[in-house]
């Protein structure tokens, strides 16, 4: 009995120490990525190639989901607002919820599962097939050549994708609210414009998506770089990327929202 509880305790302790160890490793990895990103800015082609993979190829899923999220917001918002006789505020509801929350968050979740998992799998396989070691043998720093361009590509793509998601969502809300249901077009746009503040709402949304971009890409790169060099290890790392980035995005979203919109 005593021995079993001691084993359980030491198991917990081992897990905590392991987590702290991993956190330190992750921080060092992040710092190293930032320090060695000079090369990737001098060879901007590397970043452009990665923007193609993380950004351009995520476009379809981002645009289509944005459209549908906006359309659902239009329908649901109309149902609720109609009971209070204020359907004209539909534009405000759609625009504010997209620009402040849904745009950055849902785009980041989609980004983590579409691009983040691909990054992890790619780097994990590079490691498993010893391409990273081969680079080191040729005196090429794999962090500067492989990791940093992907990091910056993710950080650049994420705010652009979130902005496109929000814009597409507003269009979806317009499509359902104005074209399909018949809310007055003038009040839809004018109430939206008087309620959405560029600095307070749009800029804060962009800052959010920027932070999410850093978090998602960092987690994806770290999981890939740290993956055990086996088929099983890479698959586990890919799963962990999606789970951890999704949790990180939601937790960060709460913290950022609390900082930005303190009921003022």
């Amino acid at each position: 009995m005593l021995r079993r509880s001691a084993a359980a305790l030491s198991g917990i302790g081992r897990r905590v120490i392991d987590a702290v160890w991993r956190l330190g490793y992750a921080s060092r990895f992040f710092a190293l990525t930032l320090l060695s990103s000079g090369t990737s800015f001098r060879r901007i082609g590397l970043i452009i190639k990665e923007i193609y993979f993380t950004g351009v190829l995520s476009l379809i899923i981002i645009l289509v989901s944005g459209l549908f999220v906006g359309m659902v917001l239009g329908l649901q918002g109309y149902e609720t607002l109609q009971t209070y006789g204020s359907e004209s505020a539909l534009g405000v509801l759609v625009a504010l919820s997209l620009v402040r929350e849904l745009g950055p968050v849902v785009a980041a979740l989609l980004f983590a599962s579409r691009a983040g998992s691909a990054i992890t799998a790619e780097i994990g396989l590079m490691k498993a097939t010893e391409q990273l070691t081969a680079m080191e043998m040729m005196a090429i720093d794999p962090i500067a050549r492989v990791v940093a361009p992907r990091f910056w590509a993710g950080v650049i793509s994420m705010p652009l994708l979130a902005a496109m998601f929000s814009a597409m969502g507003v269009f979806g809300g317009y499509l359902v609210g104005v074209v399909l249901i018949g809310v007055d077009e003038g009040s839809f746009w004018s109430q939206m414009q008087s309620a959405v503040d560029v600095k307070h709402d749009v800029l804060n949304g962009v800052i959010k998506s920027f932070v999410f971009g850093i978090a998602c890409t960092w987690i994806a790169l770290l999981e890939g770089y740290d993956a055990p060099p086996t088929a099983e290890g890479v698959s586990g790392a890919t799963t962990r990327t999606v789970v951890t980035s999704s949790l990180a995005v939601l937790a960060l979203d709460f913290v950022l929202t609390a900082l930005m919109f303190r009921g003022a």
Partner: protein
Amino acid sequence: MGRTTLDLWVGMFVAAGLVALLVLAFKVGNMSTFNMDDSYVLHADFDNIGGLKVRAPVKSSGVVVGRVTNISFDDKRYEATVSMSVDKRYQFPTDTSAAVLTSGLLGEQYIGLEAGADSAKLASGDKIKLTQSAVVLESLISQFLFSKASEGEKK
């Protein structure tokens, strides 16, 4: 470095992202209608501001002319001090009055400016002297009830 089709796609992607940002700023937001850079500051003291919040609109004749930038409590005179930034295009006479009003029965509260007749104009940092507090529904109801009760006593 030669041009590739990859560059074209990435260029289109970045351009589309920037266009989306511009759409959010101009079509969804109100960058085009109200620019905070060209504004001046006015202050006003109220006995009671009700539920007025920072960033609430400042309207005159129903037109948004500015926004509330700061609300603080003056503990010398026990009054609320409201600061607002007003668009430079709109100048108001020195005897302008400010009131905390509500749009609709349950709508948001805003500051209504009623222009006076003075020829001198308010400058940045000036204080609006004539103010009217927010109507608090509870005190209105209790006033009504008390007056009803006193009517009943007389009978």
